């Protein structure tokens, strides 16, 4: 017979001491939280409050800004920049869909078909991160350059004629068109889609696939009825991790697009850093958050996964 741990309880301390020990233990989590939470309150929450107050201020850089509860800034910002808002959502949603389409096969390959190459493939997915993403985005300028092999091949296959007609490219070139920006967004956020997809696919018991096969399910049916439903948490996490940062991104639009492809992030950046119109920049930030929050809430409700935090 084995002795269980409960056979040797530590000598019980006197009542007062026990009470003190319990109290001390109760305080432990608060002490652990204190520094980090204070940091977040000062440098994350307080700035948001400041920004909220800035968004309803009026004034100028010379005379200073004062809170005048000028909510019209929101309305003006929305009416002036709604094309950029719509464009951001459209580009980001397209890029997210493309990421899912491109990322799923690779995540599936790594999870089920890679065998001993699994680690190598995983490293290859993460490795590009170590070259600055700005350098890699600039590389797309070379890849998609006018008269380059990619553009010439697309032109020869009449793909560009079709995309020109659809309005996503212009004048037989790819750079400085919506296609280039969406391509850049897709490329930059693809790993954020692949990693959560892989994590959820990797957890699936491969015997479930065998069981489905034994029950005469064809591979496609197995995928539709077993693999895809079980990977839904990864799909949801991946789409959120792609969609949220992509909507606020302004790097791809700036480097790969022209002035006709400016997204809302570009507007916030130029209002804040160049025009120095802080109220408008603040109002746009809150509008962007509201748009994203609304879309994410609807999406999470629809997909029925609420345990993300």
């Amino acid at each position, binding site marked *: 017979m084995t002795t269980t741990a409960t056979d040797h309880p530590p000598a019980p301390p006197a009542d007062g001491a026990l009470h003190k020990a319990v109290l001390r233990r109760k305080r432990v989590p608060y002490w652990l939280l204190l520094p980090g939470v204070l940091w*977040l309150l000062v440098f994350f929450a307080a700035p948001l409050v400041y920004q909220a107050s800035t968004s309803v201020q009026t004034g100028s850089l010379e005379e200073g800004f004062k809170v005048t509860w000028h909510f019209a800034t929101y309305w003006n910002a929305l009416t002036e920049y709604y094309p950029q808002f719509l464009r951001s959502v459209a580009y980001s949603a397209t890029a997210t869909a493309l990421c899912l389409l491109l990322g799923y096969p690779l995540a599936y390959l790594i999870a089920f078909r890679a065998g001993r190459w699994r680690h190598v493939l995983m490293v290859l997915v993460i490795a590009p991160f170590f070259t600055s993403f700005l350098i890699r985005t600039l590389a797309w300028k070379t890849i998609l350059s006018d008269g380059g092999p990619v553009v010439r091949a697309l032109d020869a296959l009449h793909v560009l004629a079709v995309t020109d007609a659809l309005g996503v490219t212009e004048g037989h070139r790819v750079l400085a068109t919506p296609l280039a920006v969406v391509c850049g967004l897709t490329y930059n956020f693809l790993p954020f889609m692949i990693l959560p997809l892989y994590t959820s696919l990797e957890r699936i018991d491969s015997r479930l696939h065998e069981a489905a096969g034994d029950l005469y399910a064809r591979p496609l049916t197995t995928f539709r009825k077993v693999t895809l439903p079980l990977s839904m948490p990864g799909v949801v996490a991946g789409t959120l991790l792609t969609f949220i940062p992509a909507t606020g991104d302004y790097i791809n639009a700036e480097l790969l697009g022209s002035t006709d492809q400016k997204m809302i992030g570009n507007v916030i950046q130029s209002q*804040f850093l160049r025009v120095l119109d802080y109220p408008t920049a603040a109002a746009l930030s809150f509008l962007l958050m509201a748009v994203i929050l609304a879309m994410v809430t609807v999406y999470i409700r629809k997909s029925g996964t609420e345990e993300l935090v």
Partner: protein
Amino acid sequence: MALLNRLARGLRRNLVVIAGLATLAFLMLPNVVVTVFSFNKPNGRFNYQWQHFSTDAWTHPCGVADLCGSLSLSLWIALWATVGATLLGTAIAFALARYRFRARSSAGTLVFLPMAMPEVVMAASLATLFLNMGVSFGFWTILIAHITFCLSFVVTAVKARVMSMDPRLEQAAQDLYATPWQTFRKVTLPIAAPGIVAGALLSFALSFDDFIITNFNAGSTVTFPMYVWGSAQRGTPVQINVIGTAMFAIAVLCVLVGQLVGRRPRRS
């Protein structure tokens, strides 16, 4: 016909493999271009078109003004941001993963929010705070910004690890008369270590590569990503590609060495 049929069947069976490898190629393509163009000798100021082969940039990696200064500044900031975020984040992660207390869910939300927000919003709001406080932008504002956004990622990485840990291991240690401190140092910390290391590495990578938040909070201080951004307007020196390629090679090498070292104890 039979051959064609067999080919078609093989293609269909390996469709996932082919599609997956195509995606991988899409992911690797820019890195290949960056590497190839690090051996370019461009005619103008921009390194976007292939001219002829040259190793000039590799032999003079610091041949352009300010480039290596910005690189070392970025590494320095990334180092301190990692230290700060890992210390603060690990403590929060332990509190959230091991204890049940009243403020737990609100603390969890506070930690989650920075990750759920577009970077540009966080960047602008932090810069608003600094502007209102009259803080001058530079090294410290960048460091504060980086610690703030890395923190949540450390919490997520460490929390996942601590949550999956068997609580009976700690109970066993206490039953064997280990003091709480001994239990933490000898049992809890070693088990949580991979999560902490993962969080720290993630912080380093995020901080080193950050542009959006730095751009709002840097003032006239130039980190490496800021340098690259500026060069996209002024003209891109080949040395940028050299540094990009070298970082990539070093990282892959580190991973390979880590794998080899990690595998050894299991063999013996």
